[in-house]
């Protein structure tokens, strides 16, 4: 359906509203806003541009087909798309059927990813926080996040005790949270 043009400065809510009303321009606006986040996380996980593009396609088409999957009252769109993209990429990496029902994914923290400037600032902050972490902690977190490894797998790879891996992963996530809480 060809609807009215959706401007780039619209809020996520307005973009979603356009998508829900079947407006293809809403999908174009959504893509322009979040395709880089979705694609980059998929690429980092999969290490393959074609496979990452497939995840990108799949995530956006799912939202087009079922925009009700995202509940705007329970989080913001950008982080939600990032979490879904990572889940799908990990599923692809492990060549398994999707383990997570998208409708069940709720992301309650709301880092602002809607604007280019906000995304750039958030990106710098995340990179700074990760860079400030002890390398073992960052490594455990990245293995869990980008490789989709379980704590026992990380423990086996690194030779660190299970409890230590658990602690490091949680501490790493809390460090990111703290960085955005100030």
């Amino acid at each position, binding site marked *: *359906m060809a609807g009215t043009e959706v401007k780039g400065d619209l809020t996520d809510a307005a973009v979603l509203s356009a998508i*829900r*009303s*079947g407006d*293809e321009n809403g*999908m*174009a606006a959504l*893509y322009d806003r979040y*395709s*880089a*986040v979705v*694609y*980059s*996380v998929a*690429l980092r996980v999969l290490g393959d*541009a074609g496979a*990452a*593009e497939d995840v*990108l*396609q799949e995530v*956006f*088409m799912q939202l*087009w*087909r*079922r*925009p*009700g999957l995202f509940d705007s009252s329970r989080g913001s769109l*950008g*982080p939600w798309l*990032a*979490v879904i*993209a*990572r889940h799908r990429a990990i599923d692809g990496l492990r060549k398994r059927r999707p*383990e*997570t029902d998208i409708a069940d*994914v709720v*992301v*309650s*923290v709301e*880092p602002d*990813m809607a604007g280019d400037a906000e*995304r750039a600032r*958030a*990106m710098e902050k*995340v*990179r700074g926080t990760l860079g400030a972490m002890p390398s073992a902690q960052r490594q455990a*977190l990245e293995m*869990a*996040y980008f490789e*989709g*490894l*379980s*704590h026992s797998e*990380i423990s086996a790879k690194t030779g660190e005790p299970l409890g230590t891996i*658990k602690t490091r*992963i*949680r501490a790493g*996530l809390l460090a*990111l*949270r703290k960085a955005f809480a100030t």
Partner: protein
Amino acid sequence: MSMHEQFAEDLALHALGGLEGEERVALEKHLKGCAGCRGELERLRGDMALMALSAAGPVPPRRARQRLLEAVAREPRAVTATARGGWWTLVPWVAAVAFGLGLVVLWLQNSDLQQRIAGLQSASAQQSAELQRAREVVSTLTATDAMRVTLVAAKTPPQPEGKAIYVRDRSSLIFLASNFQALPAQKAYELWLIPTNGAAIPAGVFKPDAHGSATVINPPLPAGVGAKAFAITIEPESGSTAPTMPIVMMGAGE
């Protein structure tokens, strides 16, 4: 509500999808009943989303946008439920229409029932009136204190007389007797219906009163039997299944 500290590390792993086996089962069971831990899981997912930004930089190839929009165009979607408020917003309208239709149906049924009730009341009143008249007729015919007078030609002594009134379609028979002679004990008169075909059918046993009068009202008879005559014989008090000769009185229909 705060989370349970003993699940803190497992929650982080679960958000990442890295919790397995019994630990995962136990946590998921706990999450069903713990809002505090569910809230923490949602916050950890937010933290995870931040991790995605650390990978930011690469952009999808230009063709990816076109590919997506072409796929979107191939799947034109009817306006979703959410966009227009959902199918459930139609529920009140559907309910209102259904309610209205229901009222019309009920009104029509009510009118029909009222008409039928009025018809039944009218029929009932008519039947009551007819029943009352029939009761009066029967009461008069069968009253023991009724004066029964048979008129005959002047200077002619009273003769025994029987009058049978028979309606075949209703198998209804009324017989009036007058001036009948008294009978010995254990004897009675018996009325017979002589059908157009076949043997005589018993049509009631009677004994005249002191004035020689008697009535037989609707004795049990087979349905729809045509009668060519009626006859009377003298039988035992209990009656007979076949007439005992001689026939003391007989009359054919007009």
